[in-house]
Structures are given as C-alpha cells and as structure tokens.
C-alpha cells in the first residue's frame, strides 16, 4: 500500500499502461509512449487482445476523446472547456500520463501566475555569484516539457493574466523558447505539446486573445448526459478514492449514490427528473465531481462516526454543504427543494429527516 495521499495517474495505472504499451503495435508519433489508438483505449476503457481489462478513465462520448487525441497527434494545443467538475483536469492528466508517461509538468493558472512560471526563472544566489549561466536558470514545467518532448499541462488558463497568457504564443507557434540573457533558446523536441483547461464560467475573467485561441483546438466537456452515466462515474470514482483514502466503510449502496446524483441533476436542471415540477437552481455548478465528494464525505463519516454503512444522515451534511454555497439565496432554494420534492418522494423520508436535522 502506497504512503502517498494521491498517486499520479501514471503511478496508479502503471500496470494498465505497461500492458497497453506491450500490446500496442500501431505506429506511435515521435516521443509518444503509446499509439493514438492505445491512448484512446486507455481513456475510454476496453478489453485488450490478451484479455486485460482497461478501466475507463472518462465516461462520455468516444468522439470527444478521439478529437483530443487526434489534436495532440497533429501537435496542436488542446484546450478543454467546461464548467467546473466535468473532468477537464482528469482528462488532461490521463492524456499526459498515457502519451508522455508523466503528468507532473503542470502550471497552475491563477491571477498571480507570472511569466517565470511559464518560461523560466533564475536562481538568484547563483545569478549574483556567477552571473547569467545555464546553471543559474530555473526551468519552468513548460520549458522542461519542451526539452524532453513531453506534454505540459496548464490548468485554468483563463485565470492567468492576459499578458502572461500570451507568452504561450511563441512557444506554441514557433515551438521555441528564447533565453535572451544567455543568447540561446530552447527548441521543442518532437512530442512536446500543451493541454490547457479553462472554466466556461471564468471565460470572462481573462478571455484568450484571438492569436492564442487560434493555436488551440477547443473541446467542450459536457456534463454527463444520463443519470446512469453519472451514477456510474460517481460510483467508480468513489471506489477509487475510497481505496486511496483507505476508508474502512463498506462500498456505498448504489441506491444512495443514485439519490445524490438525482438531487444534483434535478437542482442543476431546475426541473425534477420526471419533468413534472419546476424548481429553482442554486448558484453553484453542482458538478459530478461535487457529487463524488459528497459520497466520499459521507463514507468517511459513516466509517469513523457511524456504523460503517453509508446512511442518509452521513450524506446530509455533505449534501447541504455542496448545494448551499450562498448562505441566503441557496438556502431558500434548498429548503424549497427539500419541502416540495424530497419530502413528497417515496422512500426518501430518511434523507428528508436527516437534512431537516442538519437545519439545512
């Protein structure tokens, strides 16, 4: 059992990746660990010729993953768009893990991300002592990816200030990173590419310049289409995470997951599943990822404070916390939902009571 809190994709699925690499006899683009077909199989899951079962990492349209892989194979940047919690980062991590075998070349975009984070910085002690030299240079993940022919990830691209974003233009079009201080440059090795993620809702924060936009292929990751898809995603991820977090509780009952997903989908869509009642939507996204964390939270409660089985009471606190993001508006939305939908529904009495006790 690993001591790590969370393993990287390439560590967690090392066995699958190794088998895929062994079976894969299709041509691989330069510096790719797997062929594009194998990458798609790794993400979407399937059974290999030798009987190895590859677990799906992304549940959704096959064509989305195909577009993503084809984009990377034509060395265009890939921009994943979507509301929070639609597996953008997950897809990007698994793609880099499968293609480069390394998902750690990561730049987290924030309002404070500087050019150094994308290009290079300096080791100032050495810079002062010896003057500019390659040894004093601190390479950014992007620079390392360029020199090693790997894929760099940029998370939350639109949160990065516009002038810093634009440093990516040269990197992506000329595939080079000049270092004027040393009168040299780092030229990208084949296999280099960038996967960026951006939040649909943040688009207004720092809209990409059209020059940069043009260098990315855009792919919108949608929310899961059907309730069954979503339940399957939640169940799989909860099992994964539960194992990683070493929760002693029993795996959650499918019914409980289905209830949580139902609540999320109904509030998100603003209408009950049967299409009969209109309800208000809260201010948060209520993504699948949040549903997963609600179940996990409930599992932890059940394991440590309950009887080890996931019950409505264990879920209630997480549920209320995930839904009520704005203490005034969302509270009204939630209480209305509780009184008009949850209360009336057959077999949901326990959930209703648990939520009421939370004072939701």
């Amino acid at each position, binding site marked *: 059992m690993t001591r790590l809190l969370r393993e990287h994709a390439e560590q967690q699925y090392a066995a699958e990746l190794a088998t895929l690499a062994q079976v894969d006899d299709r041509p691989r683009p330069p510096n790719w660990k797997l062929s*594009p*077909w194998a990458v*798609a199989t790794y993400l979407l899951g399937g059974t290999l010729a030798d009987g190895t079962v590859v677990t799906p990492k992304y549940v959704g349209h096959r*064509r989305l993953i*195909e*577009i993503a*892989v*084809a*984009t990377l*194979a*034509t060395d*265009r940047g890939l921009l994943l*768009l979507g509301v929070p919690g639609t597996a953008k980062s997950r897809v990007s991590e698994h793609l880099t893990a499968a293609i480069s075998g390394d998902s750690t070349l990561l730049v987290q975009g924030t309002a404070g991300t500087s050019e150094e984070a994308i290009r290079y910085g300096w080791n100032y002690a050495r810079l002062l002592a010896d003057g500019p030299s390659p040894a004093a240079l601190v390479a950014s993940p992007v620079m390392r990816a360029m020199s090693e022919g790997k894929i760099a990830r940029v998370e939350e691209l639109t949160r990065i200030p516009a002038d810093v974003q634009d440093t990516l233009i040269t990197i992506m079009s000329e595939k080079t990173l000049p270092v004027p201080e040393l009168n040299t440059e780092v030229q990208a090795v084949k296999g280099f590419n960038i996967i960026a993620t951006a939040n*649909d809702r943040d688009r207004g924060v720092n809209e990409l310049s*059209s020059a940069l*936009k*043009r260098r990315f*292929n*855009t*792919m*919108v990751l949608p929310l899961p289409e059907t309730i069954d898809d979503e339940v399957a995603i939640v169940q799989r991820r909860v099992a994964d995470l539960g194992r990683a977090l070493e929760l002693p509780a029993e795996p959650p009952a499918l019914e409980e997951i289905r209830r949580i997903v139902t609540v999320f989908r109904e509030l998100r869509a603003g209408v009950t599943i049967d299409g009969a009642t209109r309800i208000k939507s809260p201010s948060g996204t209520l993504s699948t990822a949040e549903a997963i964390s609600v179940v996990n939270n409930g599992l932890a409660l059940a394991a440590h404070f309950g009887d080890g089985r996931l019950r409505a009471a264990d879920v209630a606190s997480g549920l209320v916390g995930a839904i009520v993001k704005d203490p005034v508006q969302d509270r009204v939305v939630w209480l209305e939902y509780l009184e008009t939908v949850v209360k009336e529904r057959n077999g949901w009495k326990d959930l209703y009571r648990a939520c009421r006790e939370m004072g939701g």
Partner: protein
Amino acid sequence: MPSRLVLTGDAFYFAQWTHSVYAMKPDLDAAIPELHILGVRHHGPGSARSVRRALERLKPDAILVEGPPDAADVLPLAAHEQMRPPVALLIYAHDAPRNAVFYPFAIFSPEWQALAYALTHDVPVRFMDLPLRHQLGDLVRAAGDSGEHEAGDDGIAAVAARDAPPESPGSHMLFPSLRSDPIGALAAAAGYSDGERWWEHMVEQRRDDAGLFAGILEAMTVLRAAAAREPLAPSMQRREALREAWMRRTIRQAVHGGARRIAVVCGAWHGPALADLSGEADDERLLADLPIFDVRTTWAPWTYGRLASRSGYGAGVESPGWYEHLWHTSAASLSPSETAVRWMTRIARLLREADLEASSAHVIEAVRLAEALAALRDRPLPGLPELTEAAEAIFCFGSDLPLRLINERLVIGVAMGTVPGDTPLAPLQRDLAQEQKRLRLPAEAGSREYDLDLRKPTDLDRSRLLHRLTLLGVAWGQLQRSGGGKGTFHEVWRLEWQPELAVALIEAGIWGNTIADAATACACDMADRAEELSVLTGLLNQAFLADLPDAVTHLMARIECEAAVASDIAHLMGALPPLAGVLRYGNVRKTDAGVVAHVVDGLVARIAIGLPVACAGLNDDAAATMYRLIIDAGGAIGVLQRAEYQAAWHDSLKRVADMRGGHGLVMGRATRMLLDAGMFDAAEVARRLGLVLSRAGDPVQAAAWVEGLLRDSGALLVHDDGLWHIINNWAMALPAETFIAVLPLLRRTFATFAVPERRSLGERARRSNEGSRPGDAHRTGGDFDEPRAAMALQVVTQLLGIAQL
C-alpha cells in the same frame, strides 16, 4: 386538414445500398445478348458516379430507369438547358390534385445521371416502375392510413412508392427488421452503428468501384432469401409483386423492341427478381385488370432542405449539401484530400461571411485534424463526421452556433432547383411564374425578408400578389408586420418557397386560371359560407389588401345582408372602424372606396338606432367592452366627417346619456363625447354631474359615471379650461358635508391618474382658489424678454435642423 401528399422513396430503399453491376445472359431469346442491372442507392454521389462510369463503359442501346412511366412525356425536359436539379417529378390525380406524389432528383442521384447520360447520348430511355396511374389511389390510401403518424406536422407522408421491400409506409419506423432496414443489418454485421455510416464509408467515399458489386450482389441474394421468411402484409406483398412484374414486362418490351444491350438502373433489392425473365404469362396475368386513375405529370423545383431526411422524407439523405460537394469534387477528378480541403475552405468562407473568425491557418489545422481523426478511426479518408468534428474543435471555440450555421447552409444546403419555362404547368403555376418574373420576386429556398413600400407600383403589386396567394392558401409569404413605425404604407413580408406550394397551387386551380380570378372566386366562396360578421369584415379587409374589386363587391353585399339581420350591435360597431379606415385612407391602395360608402351608410344608421338598446343592462365587463367600442366607433365616425353620420350618432349618444339605469361608465363617456362635440355646454355637463353624484344616486354607478367622463383624461383636465371649470366649479359649489360624502367616489377616478398629473391638478386647484380667474392659462405673452428668447430660438432651430426662415 393535412394535404395528402405522397413522397416517394423510403429510408431503406434497399437497392440504394447496393451497387451491383452484373451482366447475365437471360435465356429468353438468343437475340438478346446482355442485360446489365445497376443497383443503386437513391441519392448517393458514389452510386451516381459508378452508374455514370458503368454506362460510359457499357454503351447500352436502351436504358431503363426505375421510375414512374407516367412521366414519359416530360422526360426529355430533364436534359433541357434550363433544368437545374434538385427538381422533382410531380404526379397528381387530375380530379384531386392534393393526391400527389413527388419523385425528387438531385444532381447526385444515380437515376438523374442515368437520364442525363441517355438524353445526351441519344440512347432510348424509359421509366419502368409500376405506373402511378395504376397505383395512385392505393398509395394515397396507404399514406392516409399509416403515413401520417410518421409524417409529422407538415402532413407529408413518406410512402415507399418506388422501391424497397417494406411496402408498408411508416411501419418501418416502428418495426425495424431485416426487411425494413437490410443495410442496417449488413452494417451491424460489419460493426457499424448505422447503415448510413456504413454506406457512406463503403460506397459513397470509395474511389475504386471494382470488385464491390460481386460481394454486394451475393449479400443481396442472401438478404432476399432471409427476408422472404419474414411475414409481410398481403397488400404490400402484392404491390411488390406487381412492381417487379411490371419491371420485367418493361424489360421484355425493350427486348422485343430490338435492344441488344440493356442497362437497368434500379434498386439492387429488385436485381435478382429482374434477372429472370421467364414466367411472362404469370406476369401478364398479375398485371391484368389494374385500376386506372387519371394522372398528370410535371416537373417542380425541389430544395435540399426537403431532400434532407430530417424533413420527414423517407428516402432522404442526411447531408445533401455534402453529397453535392462530393459529386462535384469527384466529377472534377479532384484528389480525396482536396475534397476535404475544399470543404473546409467553404466552411471558413461561410463563417467569414457571418463575421466569425476563420483564417486560412484555421483551415489548414482543421484539415489536419480531420485527417488525423480519420486515421485514428481507421478510415481511409475523412468523412463528414470527421470534418464536422474538426470544424467544431477549430472554428467554434466552444460555441455551437457556428456549427448550426454550417449544418444549415453547407451540410444540408439551401439550393433550390429550377425547371425550364416550357415545362407543362397548371395554369395557376404559369400565372405565378409570370408574376414572379414581372415583379422580380423569385421563389427561393431560404427565407428572405422584403420590406415593401406600397407607394411604389411594383411593391404594391407584390403586396397584392402575396395577399392573393394567402387567400388561396398558398403560404409563400408571411406578413411580418405592416405599417408600424414607418407609416401605413409599409409591409414587411418573409418569403420562403416550399416545394409543396406547387401542389397547393395546383389544388387552388379549381378556383380559376389566373391568381386574381382564383383569389376572387375563393374569397366569394368563403364569403358565402361565412356567417359571422367579423369573419366577413376580416375577409373584406383581405380582399381590399389583395385588390379584388369583384370580391369586395360580393363581400359588401354579403356584409349588408348579414348586418341587416345581425342583432349584435357590438359586431356592427367592431366592423365599422376598418371600413371607415378604408373609406377615408383607401387611396394608398388605390381601392375603389365607392362600394364601401354604401355599406358604411347602413352600418352607421343601424348602429345609431341600436346603440341605446345595446347599452341597456350591461354588467361591468360588458360595459368596459362597450366603452371601448363607443370610443372606436366615435373615432371612426369622426374620421368620416359626414354631417348626417354625426347628427345620427350624437342623437344616439344623447339617448344613451339620458338613459335611466344604464351603466355609469357608458353614460359618462357618452356625456363626455357630447361635451367634446359641442352638443352639451359646460353648464349642462355640470348639471348632469351634480345629478349623478347626488346623495340619492347609487354610489357605484356614480363612480362609474365619473370614471366614464374622465378616464385617461388627467392631463386633459389640467390643460382644458372647459373641462376643468366644470369639475372645479361643481366641486367649489358643493357644501362641505356633501363634498365629504362624494369624495370617495371622486377619488376612485382621480386615483387612476398618474402622480404628476395629480400634482398638476392640485397646483392648479390651489392657484384658481387663490383668486386667479378663468382664462388665466391663455394670458401668456408680454412677460418675457423677446430679444433673449429670439437668441435661444436660433440655437433651437439649429439643433432641430430646421432651416432658418
């Protein structure tokens, strides 16, 4: 009621899928060397190309095409230089044109290419399917029975009229089976999700057609054998047998005619059945005593929108625009990669037209991505899904609007065909074509907006034409709005031609031979059947707009008739304003207003007589309606400016005002109108006001009366001295306690005025009570500095852009 159209072809048009070309030597007669059966798909550029190639290679001396032999007369027009597909053969029952069948053809239809080859190479060509004159009745009945639930709201039934084993229109949607979707079965066996993809991939995009046919022919024979085990409704079975028998008979006739090398272009499903020409006697027995219907045939323009399967056309294809692109690029012998490049370039140009970002660099990347996607999916070439997905990733940046535009304008396409001028047309069609030419109002597939200025003769004629067509139920144009901000002489129309309009037009042919005649006859007929006055006046309005003087005369007579017996004064009053408008302002449309005057005479007289009775015993709702009607009718009569109307009207109003126990609202308004007209003086109105508000009166009615007198008149009360003084003097004259008693009643009306109005009223009341005298408001002038005012005036004129006088 939905028109009973029948659209030919169906989704499984089985033979569409196959592409078998095989030669055999039927042992019918030693003199017949060859019979070549070319199995095709209905609309498929790959099939079309292969048919064309096969014909060029075979050089047949007779070509038989699966299609309605009824169209033999108009067949040569297919090669006419003005003929531009997409067009459709339109076959309709002479006595009931709404029973019609369309056979659409696109440039990439194999049948069209076969016809074009035959006609340009002087090879005798014939249609060989069971003629519609023998089956139209059955088809229409079938469409009526089961087609409509599939047809959706446009009322078109997709009926398997020309091919395919499932002769049950509509049923295939419900019970997909080997019979109903044989290609689906083949595709499923090949690991594809649907037949369309499989076909697209295997045939339409195939560059090399050698070797394909043998395999498919084999599949066909197996499929036919397997399908024979599936039960089929007897009527369908019979129809299929009849059709194949007729096809064999046509082949035999060609053989007897001396043809040595016959090419048959048909659905491959029928291929095996046509190969064996023995059993002539059985066929003839089967074909004896068929019913005969009187049918007419013509060509009609068709659109890609209607060719698309989403329009409900059973044999439709998903992407006519894309197929045309494939056809043209392959006809120009462009390399496969150029097909993708050109497609992407067209997308980029389309997006640029719509002011969306799409540079050449985008095109390059999109083509690369599409090719990478195709490689990833083990396809030899990028197909439409790959191209669309690549376009989505590169051009759309997370928005689906550009994609919708691409789908609408390119993938489906907005092309509309034309037919030659000498196509046999129904008289109405011909008349419309002439009018369209004269008025430069072409029939177009896409929707387009026209802003007509009725002061211009051409625009006026256009408007008349469109109104006439609307009367006839040919919904080519939709009136978006008329008048509006731009004055009464504007009309905005949205025009969109639909192929079915041809049928509507033929159907309207029962009314007459020109559009004007037909519209007149149709309007008169509707007038005779209408019983309600409001329907008649609506119709009259339409007839005026359409400029149909004869219909107007007829309608006037009808309206007079109905008005004479109509007991509902409200109806008469509702009819008056539009007529008055016509009478007063009719000259924009140059209509002869003389006929109207007579009717208006009668109307006014009847209204004047009936009004007091109609105002008796109204409840609040009815009074509110009557209040509005009185105001409108009063306005209309005012507009007419005829002393005798005025006199009658005022007399009538006076009787309303004097009524005992009438509704206060109506009586108050009548009083007010009489005051405005100068029939009552201020003292009289003040007296009546006092009377109504006296203590013995019913407070509710009193309040209503005041409301009738003053509603919506807050601003007027501030500025109109006459009205002001009536109210003011009356109020001033009240003893204090009476005033307090009537205050609640007054408040009900005054509370409806806007706040600023009430404030001005209050201020005015204070001023007048502080001693200013009546007429103060008029005492202006003298108090201001003329030269300073003149300086300001100069700037104001400049600001307003008025020339300095």
